[in-house]
């Protein structure tokens, strides 16, 4: 524990720091420490280390770390077996011999490996690129897979393909690959730096397609086509693209079948932005040449529009499942549309790097180029270009102003896509459609089925009467389900009024989450617009539907429903409602349920029997306040519940104490504070403190009146929810009636 001496020393230290001049400090120290030598030496010691301490704890925390290291630590701490040691060792690798190769210089680093320039001694002396795979992999498997494809790789001979020469294992047991050394920059960079216009870019792209076509003919799929794997070098003054890393993705893909999320995440071979939908599924086996076509489509997209259809960052944000979903379901924006949505300055920059003005660029992309790209990017690979050559030829046709093969999709085809994008909405939509087309809706058909079953059961029990009632109920439920499904669909389209018309036909819905959400949305909507009768009806059905949900959602709904009944003037309904709520929560040990039940039930005075039944709930709520470490926001609201409880019990001093406690919390919440003032006003009045009562009432009234004058909004946890404001207003009316209409107060 901190002793008082230390505490005094710290007080003095803290004050001294605020004084600038040494004289002022000294005289303050003399005065503050008096003759206490021990105290003085403690303070002096703190002061002595002050500037070093400041330096040590630079404001803002820890020093900067390389992104790679930081990312890796985040990953590591989360249990990923990443290999920091190996990386650190590799940095010192220059000059070492790996296999027959001497590492000369580090020339690059990618997602999965570090690339060195190296020198080969035998059989010929030449410079090569040597890539050491960074991730911990089963090296034997990698090398074996590479060996298996080595024959095929050796058959590749194309000016736009960098040859893969060798593979092996480093001393530390990691796989490496040796390739023809290509000195160049990645294709996207080359194009931008040299401000290639769209036609020049397309010509370069055609060369890339032809290289890929060559590989495909030899039976080799690249699997990792992306800008950093296509380097442009200048030969005889002409830009020549070179595709690198052939065969590597295949060799290291063994781990792809490992389907724990984390390893999958780390083992992504392709950059997510360039990954085909079928690769994203990671079934591993079923990837063919058409996956490369997709990646070529992404490359073309980026060359034209300056960014891939889905950014890696965007894809990673939603986690692995979101990534798969996006790649498999979300249709990419057409390049021309993508460019159109760009910000002014970005668009200008994009156009400039393509030697065009923005509007010309957009109109150049619109139409044929859009369709070519979209065709290459089809989710269903059967709809893509069948070969890289096919894609290249279509681009060539465009350059030659001939009609392209890719066409805008037909209407039927677009409908299909729409269905794929919005499966859920479409199921709801389909139900609506079927119901309309068939006359007898889906739901009615289900009812039919269920009735048949029931009938058999009922007949067996000879209960014809009951069966009839049962039938009527089933039919009603089926119809209600149908209304709800349609309403949900309409709400999703933001067609609230139409949805509400439908929901108005619902008589007694079966418990379901869908029904809940529909009725809650509509109930709230009515309440915010002051339609109390409709709001009460929706909430009435909602509470019936709530049986599917957990207690949390139910108390939320109850908190909303109580004030609505009172605002509607349905005191009898409120009476039944609160009895049901109390019965439901009696026996709970959760302070939150206790507190909420008080709040739900005490909007108006209650009889002695009801007050008695609320006592245990009140105790549960109060007991939690004695425990340390609970949340102040929650506690402050709990005081409100306990305050109104005490007031209704006639324990006015206690009510006032709770309100004061509530007002002592520093969390600002206008509605909570107003409510505390209002309850306190009533308590003070009962205690005979009329003046105080009037001033408290005023303090509570102002915020409530201005909130409603502004128009009630849904609100939030810190500004107050709409039903909190209703709660406050109901109590305000009670307080006004009590205080201002009494003879002792002159208005």
């Amino acid at each position, binding site marked *: 524990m*901190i002793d008082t001496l230390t505490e005094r020393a710290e007080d003095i230290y803290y004050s001294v720091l605020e004084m600038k001049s040494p004289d002022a400090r000294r005289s303050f120290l003399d005065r503050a420490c008096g003759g206490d030598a021990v105290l003085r030496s403690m303070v002096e*010691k703190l002061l002595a280390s002050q500037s070093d*301490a400041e330096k040590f704890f630079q404001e803002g925390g820890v020093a900067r770390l*390389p*992104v790679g290291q930081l990312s890796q630590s985040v990953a*590591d701490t989360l249990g990923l077996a990443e290999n920091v040691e190996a990386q650190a060792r590799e940095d010192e690798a220059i000059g070492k011999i790996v296999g027959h190769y001497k590492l000369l210089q580090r020339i690059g680093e990618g997602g999965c490996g570090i690339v060195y320039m190296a020198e080969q001694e035998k059989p010929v002396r030449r410079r090569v690129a040597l890539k050491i795979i960074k991730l911990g992999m089963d090296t034997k498997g990698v090398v074996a897979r590479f060996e298996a494809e080595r024959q095929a790789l050796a058959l590749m001979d194309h000016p736009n393909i960098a040859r893969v020469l060798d593979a092996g294992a480093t001393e530390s047991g990691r796989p490496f690959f040796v390739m023809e050394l290509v000195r160049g920059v990645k294709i996207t960079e080359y194009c931008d730096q040299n401000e290639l216009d769209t036609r020049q870019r397309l010509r370069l792209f055609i060369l890339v397609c032809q290289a890929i076509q060559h590989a495909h003919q030899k039976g080799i799929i690249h699997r990792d086509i992306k800008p950093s794997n296509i380097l442009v070098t200048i030969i005889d003054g002409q830009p020549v693209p070179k595709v690198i890393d052939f065969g590597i993705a295949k060799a290291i893909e063994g781990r792809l079948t490992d389907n724990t999320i984390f390893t999958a995440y780390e083992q992504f071979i392709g950059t997510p932005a360039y990954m085909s939908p079928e690769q994203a599924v990671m079934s591993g086996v079923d990837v063919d040449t058409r996956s490369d076509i997709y990646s070529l489509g992404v490359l073309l997209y980026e060359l034209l529009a300056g960014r891939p259809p889905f950014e890696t*960052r965007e894809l990673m944000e939603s986690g692995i499942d979101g990534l798969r979903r996006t790649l498999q379901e979300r249709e990419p924006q057409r390049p021309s549309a993508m460019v159109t949505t760009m910000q002014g300055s970005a668009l200008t920059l994009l156009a400039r790097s393509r030697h065009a003005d923005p509007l010309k660029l957009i109109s150049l992309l619109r139409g044929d180029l859009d369709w070519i790209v979209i065709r290459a990017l089809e989710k269903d690979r059967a709809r893509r270009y069948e070969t890289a050559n096919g894609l290249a030829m279509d681009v060539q046709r465009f350059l030659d102003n001939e009609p392209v093969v890719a066409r805008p999709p037909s209407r039927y085809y677009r409908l299909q896509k729409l269905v794929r994008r919005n499966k859920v909405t479409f199921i709801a939509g389909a139900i609506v459609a079927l119901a309309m087309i068939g006359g007898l809706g889906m739901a009615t058909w289900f009812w039919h089925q269920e009735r048949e079953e029931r009938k058999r059961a009922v007949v067996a029990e000879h209960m014809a009467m009951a069966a009839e009632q049962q039938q009527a109920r089933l039919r009603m439920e089926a119809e209600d389900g149908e209304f709800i499904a349609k309403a949900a669909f309409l709400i999703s389209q933001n067609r609230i009024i139409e949805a509400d018309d439908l929901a108005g036909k619902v008589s007694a819905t079966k418990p379901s989450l869908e029904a809940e959400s529909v009725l809650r949305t509509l109930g709230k909507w009515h309440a915010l617009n002051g339609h109390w009768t409709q709001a009460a009806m929706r909430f009435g059905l909602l509470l019936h539907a709530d049986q599917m949900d957990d207690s*949390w959602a139910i108390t939320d709904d109850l908190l909303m429903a109580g004030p609505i009944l009172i605002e509607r003037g349905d005191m009898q309904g409120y009476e039944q409602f609160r009895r049901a709520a109390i019965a439901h929560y009696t026996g709970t040990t959760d302070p*939150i349920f206790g507190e909420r039940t008080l709040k739900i039930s005490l909007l108006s005075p209650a009889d002695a029997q009801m007050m008695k039944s609320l006592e245990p709930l009140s105790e549960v709520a109060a007991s939690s306040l004695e425990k340390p470490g609970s949340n102040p*926001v929650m506690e402050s609201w709990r005081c409100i519940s306990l305050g109104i409880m005490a007031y209704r019990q006639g324990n006015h001093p206690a009510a006032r104490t709770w309100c004061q406690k509530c007002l002592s919390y520093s969390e600002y919440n206008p509605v909570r504070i107003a409510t505390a003032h209002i309850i306190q006003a009533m308590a003070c009045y009962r205690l005979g403190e009329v003046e105080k009562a009037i001033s408290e009432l005023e303090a509570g009234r102002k915020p409530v009146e201005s909130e409603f004058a502004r128009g009630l909004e849904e609100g939030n946890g810190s500004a107050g929810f709409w039903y909190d404001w209703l709660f406050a207003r109901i109590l305000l009316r009670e307080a006004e009636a009590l205080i201002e209409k009494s003879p002792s107060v002159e208005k």
Partner: protein
Amino acid sequence: MSDITLVLEAINRGESQASEKLLPLVYNELRNLASARMLHESAGHTLQPTALVHEAWLRLAGDGKQNWKGRAYFFAAAAEAMRRILVEHARRKTRLKHGGGQQRLNVEDLQLAETPPDEKILLVEDALEQLERSNPERARVVVMKFFAGMTNKEVADMLDIGERSVDRHWVCAKAWLFQKLQDAQ
């Protein structure tokens, strides 16, 4: 809506259990962000850990639904997450440097203020564990200031104490921790 947003809303509603759910979600958020960055930037590019936390927050708060309360809770959780991440990182790095064993740091010949960041983190962590026992509130201030770079206002909101108390805690903690480190020599 993200899970974090939901949890923050639950906290705002005053649901006590909600804050426990926050930490794992924050970890997840930081991980996604860090991985995305790893793919985008070269490994040598430096980044302040606190910047990562702030970036994560900006993305969450982008929808404008979060208030200061959510912010405070988020930052407190992020501070704990960052602490663990950075301490783990530093442990691994120093273990490597000292040849594998769980060696104690040698602080003798070091000018403390010039300690490399990794070792600094470990030294602070050691002293912090002591502080957690003797003065838990102050320890929390240190975690939020040192590991997450929160402002005094943010810490004050989080701990529900005045800004001046936060400042006093932090000023005194720095001197106190530094002395502990010196004494350890």
